[in-house]
């Protein structure tokens, strides 16, 4: 449990311009992406951001399209901020934090049109591929949204589309066709601590976050999703500044880790 004293300590550090690991306010922790971690998944990526560890898996299954988009495959994003990563976990309906995490990542992918959903249609109105992206948090040391967003797009880029056998079963042995991904949306979240804008807080710093703004960018020009969290407000100017920082960081991540 994080105490009041703990959050005061973090705030005082930030006010003094310091962070635990001597990073600058706009520096990320070390980011590692290990693609193809899970053999049974059609695509996967283990993301390590500092000590935050998230495994994202992509599974393809045959399903029906939604009635209002009969020619398109279906995207499903699910997050499990399970007990392994959060000791105060209670079983039951999905907790709001997991739901928000999944939905913010989902919107980044969906709204950017990163996946060519029409290429996932097998029989219009009848049979399409459903792409299931499962975000599995293994260690929560803060900034789950950004790490999950990066993991999700990395896993999708790793994903292959199975062949269908004549009897309708899937052939996973010989998967040559890659899932078509045309965009690399990257979420970058600006956190306000003691009134300062800070990137990529660890769990201790996160306990002192007063508000956050996630901006998912596609390139140096275009955004595709935003989400504010926390109780502290942002002035319009702060929103614009947050967008600028996020676009810049998103570009750096795309370049360094996705060669884009």
């Amino acid at each position, binding site marked *: 449990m994080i105490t009041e004293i703990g959050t005061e300590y973090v705030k005082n550090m930030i006010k003094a311009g310091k962070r635990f690991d001597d990073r600058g306010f706009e520096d990320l922790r070390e980011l590692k992406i290990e693609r193809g971690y899970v053999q049974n998944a059609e695509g996967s990526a283990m993301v390590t951001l500092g000590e935050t560890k998230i495994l994202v898996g992509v599974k393809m299954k045959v399903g029906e399209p939604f009635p209002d988009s009969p020619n398109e495959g279906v995207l499903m994003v699910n997050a499990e901020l399970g007990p392994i990563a959060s000791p105060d976990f209670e079983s039951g309906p999905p907790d709001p934090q997991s739901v928000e995490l999944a939905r913010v990542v989902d919107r980044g992918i969906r709204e950017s049109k990163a996946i060519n959903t029409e290429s996932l249609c097998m029989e219009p109105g009848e049979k399409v591929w459903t792409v299931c992206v499962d975000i599995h948090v293994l260690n929560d040391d803060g900034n789950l949204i950004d790490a999950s967003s990066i993991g999700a797009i990395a896993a999708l880029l790793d994903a292959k589309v199975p062949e269908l056998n004549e009897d309708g079963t899937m052939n996973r042995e010989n998967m040559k066709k890659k899932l078509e991904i045309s965009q690399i949306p990257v979420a970058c979240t600006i956190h306000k601590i003691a009134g300062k804008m800070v990137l990529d807080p660890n769990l201790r710093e996160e306990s002192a976050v007063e508000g956050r*703004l996630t901006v998912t960018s596609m390139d140096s020009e275009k955004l595709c999703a*935003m989400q504010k969290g926390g109780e502290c407000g942002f002035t319009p100017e702060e*929103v614009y500044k947050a967008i600028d920082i996020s676009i810049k960081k998103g570009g750096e991540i795309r370049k360094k880790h996705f060669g884009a």
Partner: protein
Amino acid sequence: MSVKQEKLIVNGKRPDGRKLDEMREIEAKAGVIERADGSGFFRLGNTIAVAAVYGPKELHPKHLLDPVRAYVKCRYNMAPFSTTERIRPGPSRRSTEISKVIKSALSSVLFLEEYPETGIEIFIEVLQADASTRCVGLNAASIALADAGVPMKDLVASCAAGKVEGQIVLDVAGEEDCEGEVDLPIAYVPRKNEIYLLQMDGIVKKEELKKALDMAIKGCKVIYDKQKQALKCEYKEVKAK
């Protein structure tokens, strides 16, 4: 699905005759649910929500309660008949997320530290949906909190801007909603010039986003005035009794 040849926006006029930066008709009321400690009604065009507030009050289970501030419970719910397709009763992932962002936005303006070890419950019911249900629900809830006499820094007002056929417009609704390229709902407090809820979907350039945000802020100011008025009416009625 159907092939639409016609443009939605013609000569700066929208399908329902509004200008680009014009909001739909607003109706706001306080005190509509007698049993609640406070309640509000908000209508924006064809989107209608009511909200009730109970508390500060005792809550179970005890270990959820916070020793330094009130625990806020917030539930946004759509009536099963509020949309074209019937909605199954019970929480969905969508309503869970919306409940969370509304809860954060409203908590921003409450003096929660004044009521440690208690709970404040906010319940929002969308009765009819034609876009912007989270904004309309939040507006009703904001009135309900004030009506309940929960100490607030200020009222929170909420509305959305969007992009339709490449143009930035205020308060997307009706036909525009299906075709809308971008949705930007916000919640805002004029006096503080601060944004407490902000979500965005759809591909947008930085400059477009600024324009949309400006427009949404102007919309919030209009709504804020309507909320104030509703509370004054309620207050007058009470005095008149």
